[in-house]
């Protein structure tokens, strides 16, 4: 069976000539259906660029990206994306923002009422659905943005540092919700992060990306049982994985 997402010699160069910036690659990588793959690397390594290229929102300079055997040429519309800055609009309530995804896709909001309710409940926002984004904390906003990216039930999700701007405690709480949702629905997830612990807690596989120009240094398969709660995180195996990643980054002088 073909992998769901297949990268072959993918690279990105910004500009041309002597001033060109080699941002990323070349990278080969395979992501199977239902996997949760983190792209873990320091800032500026091009992991967000890769995510945008997989989404078809940015053209690769070289190589080939295929999803489900089809080469990515333009924007992919059957995936769910969460950007670094959330895409909640200030003129809509939490619920309205989630429904914006449906409306832009021409889907009926009435037909999805129950599934929106369910999503809101799964991230504990049911009591805030009539609130506007500015009335919410940063963590609540990200939870709402997560629902927005998920409401059309995409089989593949691309998440670009969705927890990057949150405080440590909130991150922890949302991570737990995120993991619960993944266990329940099992979408294929590409998750961009610069937190080693976060990557190892959530992922089936962690792709370690080197500093610019970003390449996949190694893919660590994380063989730990789900749900990975507090217990698992204090286990020697978990700490072993964290150390493994830390060592690679130390080798690059990042840590």
């Amino acid at each position, binding site marked *: 069976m073909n992998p769901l997402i297949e990268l072959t010699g993918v690279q990105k160069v910004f500009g041309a000539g002597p001033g060109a910036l080699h941002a990323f690659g070349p990278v080969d990588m395979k992501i199977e259906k239902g996997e949760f793959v983190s792209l873990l690397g320091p800032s500026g390594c091009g992991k967000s660029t890769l995510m945008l290229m997989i989404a078809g929102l940015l053209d690769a300079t070289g190589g080939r990206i295929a999803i489900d055997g089809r080469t990515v040429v333009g924007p992919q519309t059957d995936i769910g*994306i969460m950007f670094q*800055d959330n895409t909640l609009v200030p003129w809509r309530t939490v619920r309205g923002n989630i429904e914006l995804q449906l409306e*832009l896709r021409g889907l009926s909001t009435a037909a999805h009422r129950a599934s929106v309710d369910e999503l809101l409940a799964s991230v504990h926002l049911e009591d805030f659905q009539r609130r*506007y984004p500015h009335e919410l904390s940063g963590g609540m906003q990200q939870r709402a943005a997560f629902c927005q990216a998920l409401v059309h039930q995409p089989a593949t999700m691309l998440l670009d540092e969705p927890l990057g701007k949150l405080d440590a405690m909130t991150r922890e709480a949302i991570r737990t919700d995120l993991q619960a949702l993944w266990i329940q629905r099992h979408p294929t997830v590409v998750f961009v992060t610069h937190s080693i612990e976060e990557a190892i807690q959530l992922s089936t596989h962690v792709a370690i990306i080197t500093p610019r120009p970003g390449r996949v240094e190694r893919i660590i398969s994380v063989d730990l049982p789900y749900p990975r709660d507090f217990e698992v995180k204090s286990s020697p195996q978990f700490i072993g994985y964290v150390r493994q990643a830390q060592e690679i980054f130390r080798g690059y002088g990042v840590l």
Partner: protein
Amino acid sequence: MSIAFFAAFFLAWQYSIVWFDIPRYILTPPSVIVTKGWADIDRLLYYTWITGVEVVLGYAVAVILALPLGLAIAFSSILRRTIYPFVVCVEMVPKIAFAPLFISWLGFGLLPKVIIVFLVCFFPIVLNAILAFSSLSEELSRFSVSTGASVWRTFVKVRLPAALPQCFVGFKYAAINATVGAAIAEFIGSDQGLGFYIQIVTGNMRPDLAFAGIFFLTILGLALFGLVTLAERLLIPWHISVRHQSR
């Protein structure tokens, strides 16, 4: 607080005239302006109506033409390279300087005043509309693209609401300028309206009536600005500028 400040201002005005013994033909106390203005209220109200029509017509035409043009320039790279530099250059031309020309071409009637109000209002609306429609965040535009939504649907659901706050900056600026344009156009050539009135009574050494005229011009400007602000509150109650006002 602000009412107390207004009261203090008019009291100081009233009594400084007495204290400093300023002649009536130079400056009149507010009390006299009120009584003399009241005596001439029919003419003042009629002229307020005349000037008001010029202001509203010129402003409305400016909004109706400027918004689509701003939208077109924001979305068309060809227009951006051709019309946009022209618009910016024309914006630098003091529009009021055209007033005598328009009056010599079109006479003393309504039309030249409407055109001058239109000119004064048109450019701030165009420039802000261009800014408004070309500054959607990269995230939101990528998000819209990733849903596969049509251009029209994206416009209605994302681009237009996102652009409204910046559009209103232009609407408000234009509203402030509109009465200025009308008054100056009337100074230059008119036989009615508040600008005409102020000029005539000043010539007759009647500063009291001139102030009464200025008062009604101010009311006119405030009314237009108030209407635009009301529209803003109704259309973009979610925007931070509106939220702060209503707090």
